[in-house]
């Protein structure tokens, strides 16, 4: 009997490369046209407050590629520890940092090390603080029971192993901790032609 995970490994590797490429492209060339809305236009559409966007560096706002507003229900409080899974150019982490304040802690995790550097630079420019760890969402580089709230925006759908990602969220949260995540879901099983197309999967 073949191992389904092993069978999918080559495709998963290709998809990961395409995901890295696409979101790097959004960060490097936000003026480009993508399958999804991005930047300030998208953030405003999802109800991000203008003062949040005005307080963030332009580069973080321009590169925003989320699918909703996880801050709507995150109810962050001063002093809390927040994990932003798939932190990208850092806009959601910057907003979270303002909410948890100087006694709180914001940890970003992103597959792309250069995005981590960018996010940290954007957070510093905004006068906040975040630490970004390069890593995969299926193996979050954060200790057990160390986080009060996980936010994430349009990232988990990109994983081939969503159950593993959700288990990781559960692991890193403290008892009583919470998630506020926005993501893409589909009512029907996607056709194999879509699953096998890195560009469509990444979008």
């Amino acid at each position, binding site marked *: 009997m073949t191992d389904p995970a092993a069978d999918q490994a080559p495709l998963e590797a290709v998809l990961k490369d395409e995901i890295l490429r696409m979101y790097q492209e959004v960060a490097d060339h936000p003026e480009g046209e993508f399958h999804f809305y991005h930047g300030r236009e998208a953030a405003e559409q*999802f109800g991000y407050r203008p003062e949040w966007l005005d307080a963030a560096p332009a580069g973080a706002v321009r590169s925003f590629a989320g699918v909703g*507003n996880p801050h709507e229900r995150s109810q962050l409080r001063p002093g809390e520890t927040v994990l932003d899974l798939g932190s990208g150019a850092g806009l959601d982490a910057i907003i979270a940092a303002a909410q948890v304040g100087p006694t709180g802690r914001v940890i970003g995790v992103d597959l792309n090390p250069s995005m981590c550097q960018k996010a940290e630079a954007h957070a510093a420019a905004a006068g906040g603080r975040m630490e970004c760890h390069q890593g995969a969402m299926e193996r979050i580089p954060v200790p057990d029971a160390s986080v009060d709230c996980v936010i994430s925006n349009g990232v988990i*759908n990109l994983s081939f192993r969503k159950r593993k990602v959700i288990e990781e969220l*559960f692991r890193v949260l403290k*008892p009583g*901790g919470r*998630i506020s995540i926005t993501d*893409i879901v*589909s*009512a029907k099983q996607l056709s194999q032609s879509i699953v096998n197309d890195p560009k469509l999967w990444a979008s």
Partner: protein
Amino acid sequence: MFRLLEESGFTKVRSAVVPGFRFRKESTRNSAEAYGVKAVLMTGIKPGG
């Protein structure tokens, strides 16, 4: 994903459709509609604490 959250142990799992979400390109938008693709906001709590 809602089911995965519950199966993983999260409680008080809630989801709400993100009203403003849509794809920019018409071809992607049409495919997304055919598959019932939507953006959702999901919340849940890890028991204890």
